């Protein structure tokens, strides 16, 4: 059979794309090398955050936020999505001025950010450790359980008729002039009229098959979780500059990230680094001193694609008709994932989308791109 759409990569974006393509009545096959959501989509911090995004991402983030609110209807589970607000703290007047400027910019793009005076923050979070100059709150932001979201989309897609194949590695893909032919590690060939590349940290490998090399590197978040502690941290907390991000779930576990682990794209493996974990513990206690007596019980990581400008590649291929890319989310694709899938379904089926995508072009680096600069902004 020839599918209307084939998708390479079962991360959140790919799984959401599969669901959205199905909903439109088209046939779709999703090919995932391991299990859906087993890399960056499943192992990230779990921040559902619009605040602090590059303006180019805001229309996409706005659209995604609507989908997050409708998860139970869309995928049959809320995936532990909670609207806790995202509070970004400024630790100096200069940082506060930065937050003020960012809130004006966001406001122009339709995202309401509330500037919070230091005294209010102190009253609400008396346990904060260092001097706070103020903060910026996005009340409609929140958090979710990343382990649940991509698999929930994959299940919903399958229920809607998608052919979701896990443990299925794609080793080659060509465009014949009329359609795509994908070679699988099993020797089998999958044929489709359109192709969506949501291969995450391996997205540039796929784009290169179609003559579109992009300078995608890999990064690994260094994630930490503590034992359950009495629930006190009711907001998803970030700091200006992004050096640490912290949230707590009502069960009591405090989840935080700071710095990077190490990733190996060839092996598809990532792991946290002890030195980073030590540093993360210091930053966490500096921000919230009461965490000093709470025990770390687990650290983890996953392989994530990152781009030199920390913006994803998202849009229609410049070389191949019917090919659409979405990868390289550089540590903050989790919140965007549901909408990216919706946009991909539109690009694949209609060749256009109402969501502005300027800044994400696959050819924006030219052919000789600079090497990737890793950042520590991985807060979803």
């Amino acid at each position: 059979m020839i599918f209307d759409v084939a998708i390479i990569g079962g991360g959140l974006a790919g799984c959401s794309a599969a669901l959205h393509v199905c909903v439109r009545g088209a046939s779709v096959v999703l090919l995932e090398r391991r299990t859906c959501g087993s890399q960056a989509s499943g192992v990230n911090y779990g921040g559902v955050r619009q605040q602090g995004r590059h303006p180019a991402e805001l229309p996409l983030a706005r659209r995604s936020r609507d989908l997050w609110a409708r998860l139970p209807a869309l995928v049959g589970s809320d995936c532990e999505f909670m609207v806790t607000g995202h509070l970004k703290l400024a630790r100096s007047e200069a940082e506060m001025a930065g937050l003020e400027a960012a809130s004006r910019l966001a406001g122009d793009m339709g995202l309401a950010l509330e500037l919070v005076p230091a005294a209010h923050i102190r009253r609400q979070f008396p346990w904060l450790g260092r001097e706070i100059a103020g903060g910026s709150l996005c009340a409609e932001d929140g958090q979710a359980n990343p382990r649940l979201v991509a698999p929930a989309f994959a299940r919903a897609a399958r229920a809607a008729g998608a052919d979701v194949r896990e443990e299925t590695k794609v080793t080659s893909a060509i465009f014949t002039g009329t359609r795509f032919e994908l070679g699988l590690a099993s020797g089998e060939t999958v044929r489709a009229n359109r192709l969506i590349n949501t291969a995450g940290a391996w997205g540039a490998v796929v784009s290169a098959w179609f003559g579109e090399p992009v300078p995608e590197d890999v990064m690994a978040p260094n994630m930490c979780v503590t034992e359950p502690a009495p629930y006190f941290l009711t907001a998803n907390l970030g700091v200006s500059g992004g050096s640490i991000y912290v949230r707590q779930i009502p069960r009591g576990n405090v989840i935080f990230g700071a710095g990077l682990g190490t990733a190996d794209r060839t092996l598809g493996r990532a792991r946290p680094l002890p030195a980073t974990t030590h540093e993360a513990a210091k930053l966490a206690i500096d921000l919230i001193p009461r965490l000093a007596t709470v025990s770390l019980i687990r650290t983890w990581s996953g392989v994530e694609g990152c781009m030199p400008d920390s913006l994803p590649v998202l849009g229609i291929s410049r070389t191949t008709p019917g090919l659409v890319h979405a990868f390289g989310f550089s540590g903050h694709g989790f919140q965007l994932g549901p909408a990216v899938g919706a946009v991909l379904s539109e690009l694949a089926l209609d060749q256009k989308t109402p969501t502005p995508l300027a800044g994400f072009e696959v050819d924006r680096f030219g052919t000789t791109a600079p090497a990737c600069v890793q950042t520590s902004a991985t807060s979803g």
Partner: protein
Amino acid sequence: MSEHDIVIVGAGPAGMHAAMTLADAGLRSCVIDEAPRSGGQIYRRPPPPLGREPKRLYGFEAHRAVSLHAGFDAINDRVDHCAETLVWTIEPGRLGVVRRGRPMSIPWRCLILCPGAMDRVIPFPGWTLPGVYTLGGAQIALKYQGCFIGRRIVLVGTGPLLYLLAWQYAKAGASIAAILDTAPSGGRVKALPGLLRGGRTLLKGIYYVGALRARGIAMASGVRPVAAIAGDDGAVAALLWCDRLGREHRLECDAVALGFGLRSETQLADLCGAAFAFDTPQRQWLPVEDGEGRSSVAGVYLAGDGARVRGADDAEITGERAACAFLVDIGRSEYATRLRALNRILDRSQTFRRALDDTAFPFPVDLARRAADDLMVCRCEGITAGALRKSVRDEGARELNRVKAFTRLGMGRCQGRVCAAAAAEIVADTLGVSIEAIGRLRGQPPVKPVALGVLARSDAAE
């Protein structure tokens, strides 16, 4: 630190013997252990104020304990014994440890892992109640603290430790309500040819059972524990059990000790990146070992019950074997002969061990698989058997780490040490596949919980 940066993790019989072998060869090693004193669990030494003569502490094993402790004490000046030290993570060439509340980084080029084992647990209703302990835990209460775990005690489960513990408790004057073995007594008869290879070990076992019977302690085989029942104070007050004919009984008690054999601690080998293979007799994924103690990772050696459950005597031998393998690997070929001799000794005990595990005291697979949906399997996170089955049936989990991701099983403080054996049976049963097919829970640092305030004191972070 020596020129070879040899680190031994675990100061039980395997680790102690590895250190002694290396010291004899003129090499200094660093022995890291969580306990204040060497000995591991089996030869654990009580705090000095509680000292008793070895015969009372270790029974028939007293001479072994004495000779091992004496041997290790004798190399005191040729070994760096890092007591009260937890290895929380392993990196290539570096161990992350916490020693008495301070993080440190220790270099290694040779790592001999001797992390030991803990009781294998099958949950049944009431197993998390206060007053319910593992058999090993009950033994430590007596050996290390001079305490019984209660005033009237039921022992339930299977394996040699069931009878050894009963004898130790009875000898110390405990009131044992019953010894309930899930293995049918016929198994012991069938296993007899293999068991006869055990020699002295078999004789000890026969002695324990005879002595217990002489004391009039109730014993039953082929039983099924039904539930531990809580009293008004929320702690255990009775145990319900079914005999081999299916008749239910109630035993009033204030403590229960349970255990179904032992389970290797494999987290450290996992963090080293060692290859694992499924071990059918032990029903567990174990680090691959080359028959001379080498793991799949260069410079990483495996010994003791943490490599495979073989008991304390063999732990000493595999500890020495790992040290010999390392010596051979650095060109001390004179140790090759000893290596082969040690393997001949191990071969002899293998038949006995297999008869013990497979036939005499088989793991009661059905008890684990028949767990009711509302039974808590993961005691850290409170995850039920029903939640595991739901993740398989409704959410498509086909592998243990997927079940973990969906349900939080094994995500608590113990990282699945306690629940993994039973959870694997339940998940495999729900899927209708072998437990080998569902993989194993991956280890993640920290190996045990560490306070953030401790990790933050990291002058040693580099």
